[in-house]
């Protein structure tokens, strides 16, 4: 005789609990944390390289880089002036809360104001795994195509800000901005967007200002 036992427990419960712990640690240290997600090649590292010099005179910034292998991205962030920690996920397609916890151990958190976490390049899995960041941003780049919100709804749904990178390429690419924005709006109403080009620097000010305001809000909260 078998018996049916109700469980009703989220499969990622353990991860979510550790994510909460991470956020608490960051709160106690007064660090505002952004989870930066995108497909490979969208410009996560380039955006970080552009962002660091614009903010480094006003706040202390650390970068945690998640990659399947290599430390290329962390090296680039360090060269741009940040304290950088590399996480090699060993094949895993996303960062999870436990990996972030170990990376936090390597930082003297109290000495930082802002932590930027560069997630693994992937438009699917990182959306499912909370890490404990206060806010999340997705970078879309126009060469990826205007249909991405429709194809990757999970990712577009779960973020607090959207950077639209490589706008300098718009004249050369069939990218219907209205169609793209309609898809975004269907999934995530009123999502704040930052069209910009990491190459030319056009549009960077609004993004920088958003980070600055969010970090200041967290500090005063």
């Amino acid at each position, binding site marked *: 005789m*078998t018996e*049916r036992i109700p469980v009703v427990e989220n499969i*990622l419960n353990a991860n979510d609990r550790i994510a909460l712990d991470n956020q608490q640690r960051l709160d106690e240290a007064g660090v505002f944390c952004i989870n930066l997600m995108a497909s490979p090649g969208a410009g996560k590292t380039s955006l970080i390289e552009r962002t660091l010099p614009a903010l480094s005179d006003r706040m202390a910034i650390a970068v945690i880089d998640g990659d399947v292998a290599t430390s290329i991205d962390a090296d680039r962030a360090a060269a741009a002036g940040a304290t950088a920690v590399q996480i090699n996920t060993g094949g895993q397609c996303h960062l999870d809360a436990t990996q972030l916890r170990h990376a936090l151990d390597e930082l003297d958190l109290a000495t930082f104001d802002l932590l930027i976490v560069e997630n693994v390049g992937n438009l699917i899995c990182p959306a499912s795994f909370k890490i404990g960041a206060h806010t999340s941003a997705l970078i879309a780049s126009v060469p990826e195509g205007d249909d991405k919100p429709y194809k990757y709804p999970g990712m577009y749904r779960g973020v607090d800000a959207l950077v639209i990178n490589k706008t300098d390429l718009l004249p050369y690419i069939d990218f219907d901005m209205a169609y793209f924005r309609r898809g975004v709006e269907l999934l995530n109403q009123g999502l704040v967007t930052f069209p910009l080009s990491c190459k030319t620097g056009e549009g960077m000010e609004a993004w920088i200002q958003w980070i600055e305001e969010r970090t200041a809000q967290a500090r005063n909260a």
Partner: protein
Amino acid sequence: MHELPVTENILDISLRHARAEGASRITDIYLVLGELSSIVDDSVQFYWDLISEGTIAEGAILHFTRIPITLHCLTCDARYTPSGEDFACPQCSSERVELDRGEEFYIDSIEIERKPDHDKTEVVEA
């Protein structure tokens, strides 16, 4: 691909609940997965067979209930499953919509066999 850690979580949660019930064996596990949860059933089953070996959950059958995406139109209150990539409301064409279902990712229940000497009701009556 993150089905291995996900499958390990399924095993951990199932074993914990089974132990609390004094189970001698888990025969079935009922999982609820929304379409947006990006999990491949076959991969979970593949890892399951490997990692459940030697536990009381070895050989348990995984049952997947897939929950399709359901959207709620904030303009006309309709609830619908979008066809293809167009998420707009089929009744009023509104683009003011919110997700109602489709992100679920949990273990609903497990089917267990009990050890005769760990029957809960007996313990309570004793």
